[in-house]
Structures are given as C-alpha cells and as structure tokens.
C-alpha cells in the first residue's frame, strides 16, 4: 500500500509513519508554530490590534497571512489590523492539533472531528515548505515533485542541494498525507451539502469543533 496514506481505522483515520518521519514532521510543525508566534509583541495578541499591523517580512509567513485586497492597500491594512491576531491563533490551534496527533504516535491517528484542523495545518505546513523551495508556479511544483523522486545529494559536498531535496521529499510526503485525508473527509460528507447561503456565516473560523461555519 502507498506510504503516508490515511486509511479508515478503528479510532478514525490513520496513517503509518516511521519514528524518523514523525520526528521530522514534528520539527517542521514546530517551526511553523514558532513563525506564527514570532514578530508579535504579545501572544496571544489583542483583537483587533489597536495599532496598524505591518505585513510579515518573511514571504512564507506572508503566504499564511496574506493581504485581503489586491488593489486597495488601505483595505488590506485595516483587515490585517482587525484579523491577523485571530488568524495567527486559529492557525496555531490547527497546528497544535496536528502536533498532538503526531506526538501521540506511533501511528498518525486523526478523529474525523479533528480532521478539518489537521488538514488545514497540513496546508499551512505545505505552504511554508513550498515557499522555502521557491515554488511559485505549477511548473515549480512539478519540478519539486520530480526532485522528490531523485537521489538526495550529499550533505557535505552539496548542502544547498541536500536541503532542497529534503524539502521536496517533505512536500511530497505532506501532500500524500493531506490528499488521502481530504479524500476521506470528502467521502464522509453528505451527498449534497446544500445550497450556498446568500450571505456570509456570522461566526469566525475556528470557533466550531469541526471547522465548519454555521449559519
């Protein structure tokens, strides 16, 4: 069976991971958690922020906390002031859910109720790893997947190539985990989730246990 794949299990959905794989994943989850908690004078921070909040200077963190407007910098800036602290905490909570599942090992077991948080955390970790690899286009993404199939360069003679290869493998492993998890999540949905609401739900994300917005 394919490695790094979630399958139905007694406790929910589970993927087999080796101890080395678990510790590498834990390390990268902790790195993303540290990124979210850095560059903040307070954690948790006040919401809304009393002062304007500058966009993150780290492009990977900025991908996690993107601008909410492409053409109106004032809209993006005000949105960031109002929401960024909440968004950081929601993402950190998702990452903590993934972290707890990894730390509980040896298998990576996810209860269906926790799956939305874990899937979102896997997304954020993949976004950071992809940004570190310089993945900006579909061609870049394809090149990263090809790189993951190749032999890893020697860390002594080609340290940069070694790091790129490890990141590419990490990206491929995370994609396999996330895609298999999301397929199970899609299968678990009712056949028709209903009509689209005319307006937005009135609760922020992360307030509900399954990550769904309630109307």
């Amino acid at each position, binding site marked *: 069976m394919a490695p790094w794949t979630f399958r139905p299990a007694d406790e929910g959905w589970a993927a087999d991971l080796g101890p080395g794989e678990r510790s590498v994943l834990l390390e990268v989850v902790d790195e993303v958690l540290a990124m979210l908690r850095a560059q903040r004078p307070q954690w948790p921070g006040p919401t809304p922020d009393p002062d304007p909040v500058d966009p993150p200077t780290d492009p990977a963190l900025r991908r996690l906390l*993107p601008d*909410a407007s492409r053409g109106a910098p004032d809209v993006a800036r005000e*949105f960031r002031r109002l929401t960024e602290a909440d968004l950081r905490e929601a993402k950190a909570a998702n990452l903590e859910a993934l972290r707890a599942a990894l730390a509980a090992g040896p298998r990576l077991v996810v209860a269906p109720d926790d799956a939305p948080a874990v*899937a979102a955390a896997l997304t954020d970790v993949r*976004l950071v790893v992809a940004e570190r690899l310089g993945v900006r286009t579909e061609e870049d993404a394809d090149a990263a997947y090809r790189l993951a199939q190749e032999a890893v360069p020697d860390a002594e003679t080609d340290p940069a190539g070694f790091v790129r290869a490890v990141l590419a493998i990490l990206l491929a492993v995370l*994609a396999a985990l996330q895609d298999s998890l999301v397929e199970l999540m899609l299968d678990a949905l009712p056949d028709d*989730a209903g009509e*689209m*609401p005319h307006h937005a739900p009135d609760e922020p*994300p992360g307030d509900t246990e399954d990550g769904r917005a309630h109307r």
Partner: protein
Amino acid sequence: MSTTVLPAEGTRTDADERATPERPWATVVWNDPVNLMSYVTWVFRTYFKMPHERAERLMLQVHHEGRATVSRGTLEQMEIDVQAMHGFGLWATVEPATGADA
C-alpha cells in the same frame, strides 16, 4: 493548483455588471500551485455549503482561470469569508462585485 495567471490590476471591465445594492462585494479565491484540488473542493463544500457539482466547478475555475468568485454580500460579510479562507490556507481577497459567477 496551476500556473497562476493573474489579471492586471484595475483592467477588469466586466460588462455583465450584476452587483446589487445588497450584495455589492465579492470574495474572490485565487489560484496557487500548492493547494490540492481535493482540499479546495472540500473547503467550498463545507464552508459555503455548496453542492458537490458547484464546488467542483468553482474549484476548476480557480485552477484554470486563476480566480473565482465564491460569495457575495456586504463588505463585512465578505471580510468574514476572506478571513475564513485564509484560515483554511486559501488566498482570498475582497473585491467589488461584478456580474461574473457566484
């Protein structure tokens, strides 16, 4: 999901202007090469309560056209949706509503 081809800022002249006074703003989701098609579909189905076919159609629109309008409403409502999309790891922006889609 595919090569990101983004329109130049301020050049969109959508003749099919169907924004209403009640729903003058839109949430637009942008393509990126990292997010999985399955995950984007799942987000649209669960957060927006879209039927399966509609979620898949909009996901493919993001994938092929680089963007799709996924909801419309007041500025405050759209900001909630945009924040939710960012929570899921999708890149979304608030845009003045035009006629196309959603």
